[in-house]
Every structure is written in structure tokens, then in C-alpha cells.
């Protein structure tokens, strides 16, 4: 069972790194769905391992909201013609190295818990999303970065779910999904009013 959970966490980490590096409009949505699938898979495995039936609700919510609803909202109103991926081999290589460095840091932090590899992969994914959030300032890119962070934190929560009461964990998970929905809607309003999601075309958002 532990190998299966580690594989699910590995998939989550891989999708998170891919979202940071390959920031093209279609691929990022695909990777977000892969990440959500990994989150749902990990949660399902946790439900079986820890005998927590409540976690199946998380699985259902993750599939419904992250795999279906969020991409639907985004694809309807949030379109960007731009490809924000790293283009040059040097840039791509630097990003990969950066991701590996963050992963090493995450694995180190993961030694805190009883499942060092599982927790390490989740911490690593989290560190990658932190950098993803800070590296670029485009509305579109930041939206995906925060959605990615939101998914990773949810995956982390399902690992810690046995330490908290079921009701509390469920409400926290629901809040996290509400955030994803509000975020997607506000970004959609930005595009509707500003006719763009690129920070270089939005005067104020340049900060």
C-alpha cells in the first residue's frame, strides 16, 4: 500500500513540476487534471489504508470540482493566446534544476513524519508551487499556480486527515474547493472587464 501511495504522490509531484515548466494554454489544463487525478488517487488510497470512509467524499469532490468544473470555468472564459513556457534550452534546464533543488528540500522536510517519502514528495510539490507563484506575475500563470498549490495542500491534508476529526477535515476540504471556484470566477471577471490576462497589458496589475 505504501508503494501505491508513494506512486500517487510521485504523480502529483510530476504534474506540479510540469505545470511550472510547461505553461502553454492547453497543456497546463491537462497537467492540472493529471494533478487532480493524482490527488483523488492518493486520497482514495488513504481512505483504504486508514479506514476513513469520509475520505471518499473528498475523492468525489476532487473529481467533480477539479477535473470537471474548474477546467470548464477556465476554458469558457479564460483564454490566452500566449505561451508562457520556457523556450530556450538554458531556461528550461534552469527550471528543471530549480525544481530538483526544491524537491531535495521537500524530501528533507518530509523526514518529519512517519512516511518520509510520501510526505517528502508532497512537500516538494508544495515548494515547487511556491516558486511557481512567485516566478511569474501574469494573471493567467498565477491563477494556475494558486490552483496547483490548492490541490497540493489538499493532498497534504488527506495525509494528515487521521489526526483531525472527520467533520473538520471535510469542511477544510470544502473551503479549499470553494477557493478554487472563486478564484476561477474572479479571473474570468478580470478577463471580461480588461479583455486580457497578460499583466503587460493591464496597467495596475504590474504592481
Amino acid at each position, binding site marked *: 500500500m505504501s508503494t501505491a501511495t508513494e506512486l500517487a504522490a510521485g504523480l502529483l509531484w510530476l504534474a506540479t513540476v510540469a505545470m511550472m515548466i510547461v505553461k502553454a494554454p492547453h497543456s497546463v489544463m491537462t497537467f492540472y487534471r493529471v494533478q487532480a487525478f493524482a490527488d483523488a488517487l492518493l486520497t482514495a488510497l488513504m481512505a483504504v489504508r486508514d479506514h476513513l470512509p469520509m475520505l471518499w467524499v473528498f475523492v468525489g469532490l476532487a473529481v467533480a470540482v477539479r477535473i470537471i468544473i474548474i477546467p470548464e470555468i477556465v476554458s469558457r472564459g479564460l483564454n490566452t493566446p500566449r505561451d508562457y513556457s520556457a523556450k530556450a534550452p538554458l531556461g528550461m534546464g534552469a527550471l528543471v534544476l530549480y525544481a530538483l533543488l526544491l524537491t531535495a528540500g521537500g524530501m528533507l*522536510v518530509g523526514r*518529519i*513524519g512517519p512516511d518520509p517519502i510520501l510526505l517528502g514528495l508532497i512537500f516538494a510539490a*508544495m515548494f515547487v508551487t511556491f516558486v511557481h*507563484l512567485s516566478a511569474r506575475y501574469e*494573471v493567467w500563470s*498565477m491563477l494556475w499556480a*494558486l490552483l496547483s*498549490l*490548492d490541490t497540493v*495542500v489538499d493532498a*497534504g*491534508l488527506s495525509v*494528515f486527515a487521521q*489526526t*483531525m*476529526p472527520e467533520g*473538520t477535515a471535510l*469542511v*477544510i476540504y470544502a*473551503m479549499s474547493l*470553494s*477557493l478554487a471556484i*472563486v*478564484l476561477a470566477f*474572479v*479571473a474570468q*471577471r*478580470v478577463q471580461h*472587464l*480588461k479583455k486580457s490576462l497578460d499583466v503587460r497589458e*493591464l496597467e*495596475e*496589475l504590474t*504592481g
Partner: protein
Amino acid sequence: MMSPLWIIPSSMGLFALATWTFPPRAFSWIRRLGILALLIALAGQVANLWQGTDPLASWYFVTVAVFSIFALWYSGPYIDREAEQHHWSPSRVKLYYVLLFVFLGSLIALALWTNLLWLWIAMEIATLSSVVLAAVPDTSAAVEAAWKYVMVTETGAMFALFGTVLALSAVRSPLFAWHQAPLHVILSTQRQHWALVGAYMALVGYGAKAGLAPFHTWLPDAHSEAPAPISALLSGLKLAGALVIVYRLFRILSLALPAVYLQDALILLGLFSLVIAAGFLAFQRDLKRLWAYSSIEHIGIISLGVGFGGIALIGAALHIWTHAASKTLLFHNAGTVRLLYHSSDVRQGASSILYRTPWTGALLALGSAAIVGLPPFAPFWSEWLVLAGGFHQPADRVFALIAAALVIIIFVAIARRVPDWLFAPGRMGVGPKRGTIKEPMALVLPSAVLACIVVVGGLALPILAHPLWSQLVGELGTVHL
């Protein structure tokens, strides 16, 4: 757990549901019922029918309930005029009131709950409802402000949640404990470094929610673009709520960690917030932005108070009340200015306020005098307690001295800037060219009552709320995290 801890926040949820269900003509009655419910809750506390989990919870609840009543009162005339001026549809007005009740319920929960996971949930409900409330005007600037708000604070939310779980797990504190730290639990000190990492993550997360510098970037936009009653609730209540959560978390962790690391982080962020406020206040031309930057200053002062501990912590608790009173007055006043002058920017005609709208101008002058910490207004006493607490600790004297210098710089910045709104440019003795504007009493009256609270609040509150104040002093006076 069917106690006021749940009943009072849930009642606001019921009012939100009622607003959603009934037609717009019923809104004013629902508002009045909401005010009545809050008055009953306050009366129940005064009559000792119920109390918060601890004196801090009771104290913060009083603050939240009183200024929520003013938010509901002022929202009526304010939203009526705003909807008329900017052609809001009935559904948008409905959305405003539904979310206002949700926001108030979450603020009450922030005050009453003490479990750190449920506090995170309450903070999230407050954030998500206020993000949409900030975007309700649906202007380009409002939606952009909402975007910045949701991005920065929700990144903070993720940090806060993970940091809290990490820190509490590292010291083996039960996450499900409703009370702060059950006496029978002995916290582990084996993984102090991870507890510290978690504590700092939580501080960064809740610091972003509180608008502490350098995580404050969302605050000036959100406060200036949101409808005035929401700006007042954000500034006066929600920001302080985030620091109350930090205090509760750090209070537990200080049982297993060297408290000096936690205190120093709070002092550092508090001082940096004062620096940012001092640097930006002098250049503000929009009244709401001016008060937004002032909020960064005051949240910095509260952070310093929590960091210094002891007398300063009592000062921080008092400052939560005094800042909320003054800032509610000032944001409501700025909302009135925006409605009457169609802008709160001095470059777009919001000047000569004292001459053209004497009530609004007088309230602006009074509120400004209070917020800069002039005696005998309430904020003077709380700021004095915070700084005195800092000077009382030999190790913190340098920080207290820097803070005092920054408070003086901020005083000068506001004192130089506010006359731009109050008076007209030109020679002395020559009146402004533009005539007076009729001030609707419905807009002025809530602010006038608030002004009375600001005037008597500083000295009279500890006397009026004597038993609660005594308990608070008893609980906080000896705490150094």
C-alpha cells in the same frame, strides 16, 4: 457543542438565507432583525447568560458585534444611494446583503472559536465572502482589487493551514482540541525546528491575511475599492482577527518552543509595517487609500503589542477595539464623501469638505485626530500601552524607540495630508467657489453615533466593561508568549 459559539455565527447564516429567499423590499427588515440579534447576543453577554471561551474571545466578540451593528445600519442608506448612482441591479444588491451576513457570521466565528482549524475555516469564509463583496461594484478597479486580494491572501491561506498543521503536529498538540492547550497534554519538544518552520509559515500566511508588511500588497486596493461598510469591516475587524489567530497559535507553541523566536518575528513584521505605512501615507490622494495605509500601521502596532507581551499585549487587545472604532468611523465617512462628491480623491473634487458638507467634514476631522493617536482619544491610550510595554522590556527598548519614532512620522504624514480634503486651496479667508452639498441625515447619523463612541471609548470603555476588562487584564497581563 450547541452553544453560542455556534448559534450566533449560524444566526447570521440564517439571515443570509432569508435575504436570498425574500424580495428586495424585505431587506431593510432583515437588516433590522440582524441588528436586533446582535444586540440580544451582546445583552446576553453583559447579563452573564453566556461568555466566550476566554476573556480575549469575549473582548473581541464585543468589538465584532458592536461594529457589525454599525455595518448593518450604515449599509442601508449607503447601498441605496450607491445602487441608485451606479445603477446596481436588484440581484447585485441582494448578493451584497447575502454576502454581508455571511461575512459578519464568519467574523463572529473568528471571535468566538478557539480551535485553530476551525479558526482557519472562519478566516477562509471571511476572505472568500469579502473577495466577492470587494468585486460587487463590478468596475474594472474593483475586480482588479478583488483579484489581488484573492491571490495574495489565498496563497497566505495555504501557508497558514499547512504551517498550523505542521507546527501543531510537530509538538504533538491535538488538532481537534477545542480549547487552546488542554492541561493534561504535555507538548513534545523533540521536533522544535519543524514546529518553528510551521510557526513561521503560519505567521506568513496569517500575516498576509492581516495585511502585515511585506504581505500587504492587496490591502490598499481592496480597502479602497470595496463598498465603504466592507472596507470598515475588513480594516477594523478582519485584519485584527488574523493576528488573534496568530496569538492563539503562538501561545500553544510557546509551551514547546523558545518564545523569543516567535516574539521577534512579530516585532520585525510590526516594525516593517510601520515603515511601509510611514513611507506611503504622505503621498496618498485618495481618502480611502489613506485609511488603508493607516490600517497597515495599526495592524503593525497590534503585532508589536503581541510581540512585546505583558502590558503591551493588553494594549494590543485594547487597540483592536480603539482602531476598529476609529477606522469604522473613517471608512464610513470616506464612503459618504465618495457618494456626495462622486470621488474620494482630492484631485477629483473631494476637497473643501468642511465647508461644503460640515457634518461630514467635522467627522473626518474628529476621526483623523483620533486615528493619529492624539490624547484623549481612544487610540492614544492603547498605543501608549503598547509602547510602554516595549520600553518595559530591556531587550525590546530599541524596537519600542524605533516604533515610537515611526508613529510620530506617521502622525506628521496624516496631519499634513488630511487638510487637503478638509479645506480648499487658496488664500485664507476666501471661501471655496463651489456651494454646499446637502448631507442626508441617514448617512451622517451612524457616523455621528460612532464619533461619540470614539470620543468616550478610550477612557470610558474599561470602566463600562469593567468585569470583562479586568478578566482580560488578568489573563493577558502576565503573558509573554
